[in-house]
């Protein structure tokens, strides 16, 4: 194992270490923290943020950012609510079509992906900075979510037997082998994302575009397509989360997902992904999401006020990045010192100086 590999392992290991320390601390302070039910609650809560953060990782790896995901969560939740409670009105035929529950899921996911594609299109075709393009979408999508039912909630999303659109709540409340679907989805997304980032040409392209767009392009990487795709992935993940939340609540509220984008970015960054692009891993993002999840659940159980929770969360994020920077600097210095020591050891023989005066 080379030094760089070891350093990488340590860097990753440190995040795990921090996670373990947090779990131990909360485990001691709150006797209920390590109970199985609590762990499932923790995982379920984390799943929401982790799924968003997985999509966000793709975007940030290309050097971009997606601020619209929180609003997209709200929009897709509302869209699902609309489809189940009010159906699709085909005005030309004067009929209302109620899609099957599977169709509701598909349409919502497609809508989220489409919004992501719009983000990508604006960014790649018109060269708008990702921050601005997705900030705009943050407002648009949130507004659209409100417009779908004039700012009201779609309540009671159970569907009707005769319309064949029941069972929506299964997604949020159902389980497989005693573990809720949200957690399975998180695991599936994480595995898929890990595979894509590490083992496919597209994944390599994502890193290359974030590292040096120009070099990537000259190497034949289709930069625009790559960027389009990462925003679509992010949109797809946001739609998934929107569906999960609407299904868990059996209701869709237009304010669902406010500030979710910031939690997702925090998880990605905590996981060691560079905001400049080109560096980071899906595993890191998962760990980052769990650090935030453990903090939130743990502090809640200890009865820490939500204001202090916010303060602590903010401090932890910045602290983690400070440590990151310190470690990188220390590593660089160490490498330089070792190199300098090697040179010092070799005899100085080649200098032939013809003296002047």
């Amino acid at each position, binding site marked *: 194992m080379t030094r760089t590999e070891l350093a990488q392992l340590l860097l990753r290991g440190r995040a795990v270490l921090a996670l373990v320390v947090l779990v131990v601390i909360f485990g001691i302070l709150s006797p209920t923290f390590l109970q199985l039910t609590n762990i499932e609650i923790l995982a379920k809560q984390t799943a929401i943020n982790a799924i968003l953060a997985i999509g966000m990782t793709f975007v940030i790896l290309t050097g971009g950012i997606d601020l619209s995901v929180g609003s997209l969560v709200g929009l897709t939740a509302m869209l699902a609510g609309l489809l189940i409670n009010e159906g699709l009105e085909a005005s030309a035929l004067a009929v209302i079509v109620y899609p099957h529950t599977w169709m509701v899921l598909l349409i919502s996911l497609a809508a989220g992906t489409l919004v992501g594609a719009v983000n990508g299109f604006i960014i790649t075709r018109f060269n708008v900075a990702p921050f601005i393009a997705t900030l705009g979408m943050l407002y648009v999508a949130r507004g659209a979510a409100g417009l779908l039912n004039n700012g009201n909630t779609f309540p009671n999303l159970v569907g009707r037997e005769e319309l064949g659109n029941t069972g929506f709540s299964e997604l949020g409340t159902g389980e497989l082998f005693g573990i809720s679907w949200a957690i399975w989805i998180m695991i599936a997304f994480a595995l898929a994302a890990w595979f894509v980032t590490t083992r496919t040409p597209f994944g390599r392209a994502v890193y290359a575009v974030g590292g040096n767009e120009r070099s990537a392009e000259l*190497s*034949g*990487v289709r930069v625009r397509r790559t960027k389009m795709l990462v925003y679509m992935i992010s949109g797809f993940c946001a739609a998934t989360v929107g569906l999960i939340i609407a299904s868990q609540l059996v209701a869709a509220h237009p304010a669902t997902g406010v500030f979710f984008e910031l939690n997702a970015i925090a998880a990605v960054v905590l996981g060691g992904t560079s905001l400049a692009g080109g560096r980071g891993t899906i595993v890191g993002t998962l760990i980052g999401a769990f650090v935030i999840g453990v903090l939130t659940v743990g502090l809640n159980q200890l009865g820490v006020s939500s204001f202090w929770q916010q303060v602590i969360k903010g401090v932890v994020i910045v602290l983690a990045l400070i440590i990151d920077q310190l470690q990188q600097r220390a590593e660089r210095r160490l490498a330089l010192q070792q190199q300098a020591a090697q040179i010092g050891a070799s005899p100085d023989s080649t200098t032939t100086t013809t003296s*002047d005066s």
Partner: protein
Amino acid sequence: MSAGVNATVPGTDVASVPLPMRAENITKVFPGTTALEDVTFDVHPGKVNVLVGENGAGKSTLMKILAGVEQPTRGRVLMDGEPVQLPSVTAAAAHGVGIIFQELNLCPNLSVLDNLFLAQEIVRGGTIDRKAQRQRALELLDRLEQDIDPDEIVSNLRIGQQQIVEIAKALTRDVRVLIMDEPTSALSQTEVEGLFRIIDDLKARGVSIVYISHKLDELLQVGDHITVLRDGRVVAHAVATDVDVPWIIEQMVGRTPASLFTRSEHEQGEVLLRVEDVTLPRLGGGYLLDHVHLEVHAGEILGLYGLMGAGRTELMEVLAGVRPEASGKIWLDGKELGHSGVADRIDSGVVLVPEDRKTDGLVDALSVAHNMVLASLKRYLNRFYLSAARERSAVDQMISDLSVRVSDRAQPITSLSGGNQQKVVVAKGLLTEPRVLMLDEPTRGIDVGAKSEIFQIMSRLAGEGFGILFVSSELKEVLAMSDRILVLSKGAITAEYSRDEASEEKLVAASAVGHGPAATHHKETQAMTGGVQA
């Protein structure tokens, strides 16, 4: 300044008058490379102290250490015999060390006046005393024999004038040691003569000058002491009047320049690449490429020569598919290529090894291996995922073929020396299995040994039937390596020579076609001296 302090300084053989500045046993290490190794450099008072060496020899690093930009890993800097710490440019300036960087460090949006006094404004009562500044500026510009309006915005000045402003800026402080990094690279002949008068004037005022340039004859004209660096070490030191240009080259290169090039004769085949009527419009009128026609045969090394901005890089970019706005037709093996971008050109077998490794060739965040395979990922696909084993074997093959010096294929690309990074970029191109390989300044900024290896690789590839298109600004390289040479000037091909016909004079003359006589003279000297350096 006391004699007592002097006596404690080890290794000072000029004990009578302490040197204004001395770098002593300096070692500087960067990730992956050693820029300087135990270098001692004396700045003699009131003299022009020349530093010369190839790209990567360590001149710039040494200069940056003297100017407080970089800190030495080991060793120390003395001024007047006393060790000093120079943690920043400001600290160096406080000690009377001024520096003029090769890349202009002016704010183009501000006026000459604002630039001259930036961060050292003459202040009276809390506000800038513009009147005093203007007077001071006019004095300075007058001393430099320049007729520049102090209120002009810097971006409106010619490059040569900007360089003068840069010099004036250094002189606004009381400098005792002035470091000049390639100060003439953007100056016309008359401006160079003006600069030399300024240097004489500064010497007369007791200012010591550290002078770095690639133009060897110029160094002998202006220099008093010459120090030659090679691969981070001082290899020779001499008084300028004792030596000549061939001596400097010998010291710089460490061997006779001819042995640098490997060139084996090989058969040439059919026309591989045919380019017809390629035109690239320039923003705001005119052409970057003006109806270019050319052919590359299998097994041929076609050299492209031209001045900066002649269109060499643009031509290669068009062929590589980077410039969708270009018109014209390109055939490979008799099949016309579409206009659909880099990926398709690479698929067809045309690949570019770009000029600037850092910005165009490599992705810093990726490892050596991942950089190498970036352009040829499709080749390692196992259904829909990348086969690690196939990637590994391709990378290992290239590492041994091109003798890339790495300890581990997963090591960061940034830890490699310039020459090895360049080999990785070449390897990336080769892994796409091209028919035509385009190399844009493949030897820029790499050491002599790596240059010679790159040439060996080129020669071998031509022998294997690749068509090679090769751009270099260095006349010697183009002449030694090419089977045929095309000269570009202002976007048009102005001459074509076979290997036997070509000469330095002919290439320089053809590269100046279309330029005005005054400009020609200046660029010509630049090109000729540029050709001497390796």
